[in-house]
């Protein structure tokens, strides 16, 4: 799996969320920080071999509030990845909790490592 993220320059304030990517025997796990995003603001799609994650919510604020210091200017996250063929894109599991998205992308059965049993004759 390779990072196919495009530069977000000129596309408004789009945040490239930090990710962790791990692989184990069963598949690949992608963990994405998207603070502020709930289920309604999240869209995950697979188009061909591209997995796209997008989350968009309004900046938190109170009525009549002046933002006097802002390290975060927008909560519009976008990131995409190229999926390699051994991954089962149709069986991706997504879990969103406390602003962290965890995607489990299983490997296709035939792509999982397996032992070859040696028979003795």
């Amino acid at each position: 799996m390779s990072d196919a993220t495009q530069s977000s320059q000129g596309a408004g304030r789009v945040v490239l969320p930090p990710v962790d990517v791990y692989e184990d025997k069963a598949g690949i796990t992608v963990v994405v920080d998207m603070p502020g995003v709930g289920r309604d603001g999240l869209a995950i799609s697979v188009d061909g071999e591209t997995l796209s994650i997008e989350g968009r919510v309004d900046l938190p604020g109170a009525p009549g509030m002046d933002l006097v210091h802002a390290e975060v200017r927008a909560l519009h996250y976008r990131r995409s990845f190229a999926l390699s063929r051994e991954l089962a894109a149709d069986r991706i599991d997504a879990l969103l909790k406390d602003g962290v998205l965890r995607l489990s992308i299983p490997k296709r059965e035939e792509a999982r490592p397996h032992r070859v049993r040696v028979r003795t004759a």
Partner: protein
Amino acid sequence: MIGRFPPFYGDFYDQLSRMQREMEQMLGAGAPAASLRAGGASRFPAVNLGVTPESVEVYAFLPGVDAQGLELAVHQGLLVIAGERPPTHPEGATDVYQQERFSGAFRRTVSLPEDVDPEGIEATYRDGILHVRAPKRAAVQPRRVQVK
């Protein structure tokens, strides 16, 4: 008369606008949205600060922490947000391809203006954002004076 010596902790809003200018310089105009990660681990969590006539509102972008384990303290006008975010390494992972997310202990300090009431501070955690609301003392809130 000699000009007034600038107080050490300066005016709260001056400090804030200076920090904001510095941030902007660091990022440059229209910088790609690397802002969440700018400055590395010490910048976790990123913080926004707003004021209303009645309160000071602090938002800490703190995804994936256990709200019960958060340490939130107010001392001498400083709000301290501290805690720990464990790494999310799944067991038996054979390869780590990217590890951009912050993990470990964090601590951030936000100076609150003098006019807030430390007793009235409330905090909520939702969708990975910690919101701390510090009400201003009643005496300093704008009040309408009725003309008789």
